C-alpha cells in the first residue's frame, strides 16, 4: 500500500477495505462513522482553541499590546487553561427560563456547524462526504445555526438576550442571500455545485484570477457577508457588549457558553475554508502557465498545507476587519445588505453570465 500526502484516496480506501475485511458492511459503516465523528470533534477542539488564541494575539498586535504571554511559551496554552476553567464552571440554572429550549439551543448551533464541515474537501480524497450539490448543501445547513441563536435569546427570558437574538436573526436572514449569490457566481464559472469539482476546475488557475473583475467583486462581497453571517465585528450587534451585555448568550455559563463560543469560531473557520475552496483554489497549488520550474516547486508543497494556508489568510483578514472597523448600527447593516450588496450581487451575476457566454475569462 503506498500512501502519499498528495492524494488521500488510496489511504481512505485502505481504511474502508481493511474494516470491511474484519467485519460485516453494516458494522464497518458504523465504525467509520464513529471514527469520523471522533476525528471531527478533535479537529473542532484544536482549531477552536487555537482560533481563539489567534484572535487574541491579532487583537493584541493591532492594539499594540502583548496579548496572552504567561501560560506556556508565548501564551500557547492560555486557551487550554481557559477551556479547563470553563469546563469546571457551574451551569447556572435560570428560574423563569424555558429550560428545555434553553438547554437545546447551544446544541442546535454546534450541530449546524458540524453538518456544514462534513462537506469541506481538505485535500484530494480527504472529505467526509462529497455531495454533488456540495455548495448548496453548505448554504442549506449553515442557515440552521441561526435557529439556535433565536431560541437561546427567547428562552433566556431576558430583554437583552431577546434584542440580541432578534438583531442576529434579522442580520443573518438578510446576509444569507448575499452569501449564496456570491458563491453562485463561481458556480456559474465552474459549471458545477460539487466542491471537489470546483477545486478540480481550478487546476490551471484560481477562480479569483481566472474570473478577474467580477470574481474579485464577489470575493469582497463574500468576505463582507460572511463576517456578518458569523456575527463578528463590525457586524457583532447580536452580542454588542457595550449595549446588550453579551446579547443572546448573556444567561449562559460554563460549557454551554463555550459551545456558542466554539460554534462562532468554527463557523468563521468553515466560511473562510469555503472562501478558500471556491475562490482561492482550495487545496490546489498556485500555478502560472508556462513557469514549469515554479509550478513543480509549488506542487511539492502538500495540498493540506495549501488548504490551511489559504484558510488562515482569509481568517486573518476577517480578524483584521473586527479589530479595525467600528461597529455599525442595525439600520446601517440592513441598508448595506438590501440597498447596496444585494443589487450589486445580482448585477454581478448577470455580468458573469454574460462573460461566461462570451468566453471572456481565462480558460
Amino acid at each position: 500500500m503506498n500512501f502519499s500526502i498528495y492524494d488521500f484516496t488510496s489511504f481512505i480506501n485502505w481504511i474502508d477495505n481493511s474494516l470491511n475485511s474484519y467485519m460485516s458492511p453494516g458494522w464497518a459503516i458504523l465504525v467509520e462513522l464513529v471514527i469520523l465523528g471522533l476525528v471531527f470533534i478533535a479537529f473542532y477542539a484544536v482549531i477552536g482553541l487555537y482560533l481563539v488564541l489567534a484572535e487574541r494575539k491579532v487583537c493584541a498586535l493591532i492594539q499594540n499590546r502583548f496579548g496572552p504571554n504567561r501560560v506556556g511559551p508565548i501564551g500557547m496554552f492560555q486557551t487550554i487553561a481557559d477551556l479547563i476553567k470553563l469546563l469546571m464552571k457551574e451551569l447556572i440554572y435560570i428560574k423563569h427560563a424555558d429550560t428545555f429550549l434553553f438547554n437545546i439551543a447551544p446544541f442546535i448551533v454546534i450541530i449546524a456547524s458540524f453538518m456544514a464541515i462534513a462537506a469541506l474537501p481538505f485535500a484530494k480524497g480527504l472529505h467526509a462526504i462529497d455531495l454533488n450539490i456540495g455548495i448548496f448543501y453548505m448554504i442549506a445547513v449553515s442557515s440552521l445555526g441561526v435557529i439556535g441563536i433565536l431560541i437561546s435569546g427567547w428562552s433566556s427570558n431576558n430583554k437583552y438576550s431577546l434584542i440580541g437574538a432578534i438583531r442576529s436573526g434579522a442580520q443573518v436572514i438578510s446576509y444569507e442571500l448575499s452569501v449564496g449569490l456570491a458563491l453562485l457566481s463561481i458556480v456559474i464559472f465552474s459549471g458545477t455545485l460539487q466542491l471537489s469539482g470546483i477545486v478540480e476546475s481550478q487546476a490551471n488557475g484560481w477562480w479569483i484570477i481566472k474570473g478577474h473583475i467580477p470574481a474579485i467583486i464577489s470575493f469582497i462581497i463574500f468576505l463582507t457577508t460572511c463576517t456578518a453571517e458569523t456575527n463578528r465585528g463590525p457586524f457583532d450587534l447580536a452580542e454588542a457588549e457595550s449595549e446588550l451585555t453579551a446579547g443572546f448568550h448573556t444567561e449562559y455559563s460554563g460549557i454551554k457558553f463555550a459551545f456558542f463560543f466554539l460554534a462562532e469560531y468554527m463557523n468563521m473557520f468553515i466560511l473562510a475554508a469555503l472562501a478558500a475552496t471556491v475562490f482561492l483554489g482550495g487545496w490546489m497549488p498556485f500555478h502560472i502557465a508556462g513557469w514549469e520550474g515554479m509550478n513543480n516547486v509549488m506542487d511539492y508543497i502538500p495540498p493540506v498545507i495549501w488548504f490551511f494556508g489559504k484558510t488562515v489568510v482569509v481568517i486573518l483578514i476577517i480578524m483584521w476587519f473586527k479589530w479595525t472597523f467600528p461597529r455599525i448600527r442595525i439600520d446601517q447593516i440592513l441598508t448595506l445588505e438590501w440597498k447596496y450588496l444585494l443589487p450589486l450581487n445580482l448585477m454581478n451575476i448577470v455580468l458573469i453570465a454574460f462573460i461566461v457566454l462570451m468566453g471572456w475569462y481565462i480558460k
Partner: protein
Amino acid sequence: MELNQIMFFLLAGLILIFSLLTITSRMILRAAIYLLIVLVATSGLYFMLNFEFIAAIQLTLYAGGIVVLIIFSILLTSHISHKFEQPAVANAFAGILTGILGCGVALWSIMKFPFTPTTQPPLEVNMKQIGMHLLNTGNYGYALPFEVISVLLLAAMIAAIVIAKKGN
C-alpha cells in the same frame, strides 16, 4: 435488520413522535422546534434515498426559511410565560376525527399505488438538467409557473408592506 432499515425506522419514529408533539404542545416556540425536528428528519429520509438535491431544498426552504420565519414572528409577538389553553372537548374531537379521515385517505391512496421493486441502479441526479427544465419554455419546461410564482410572491410582499405601513 439492515442498517438502512434501522435508519428508516429511526427517522420515521422521529417524524411521528415530533409531529404529535408539535400539535399537542401548549407552548408555541416548543411546537416550532418540534416542527423543525420533523422537517430535518424528513430531509434525512431524502438523504437516505440519495436524492441530495431535494434534501437540501427541504433544509433551506423549510428548516432554514419557514421555521426561521415562524420563530422570528413568535419572538416578536409572544412572551415566554404565555401558554395556550387546552382546546374544548368538541374541538379536540372534531380535530381528531378530521385527522383520522385525512390519514385514511392518504393511506388508502398509498396502498392503492402499485410499488414495483426494481433492481436497476439509482439514476444520478443531474443538476444541469434540473436547471434546464426549470428555465425552459418548451416541453417539460417550468419557466411559466416559475415566473407566475415570482409575480405572486412580489404581490404578497407589496401587500405585506402596505398592511404594515397602515395609512401612511
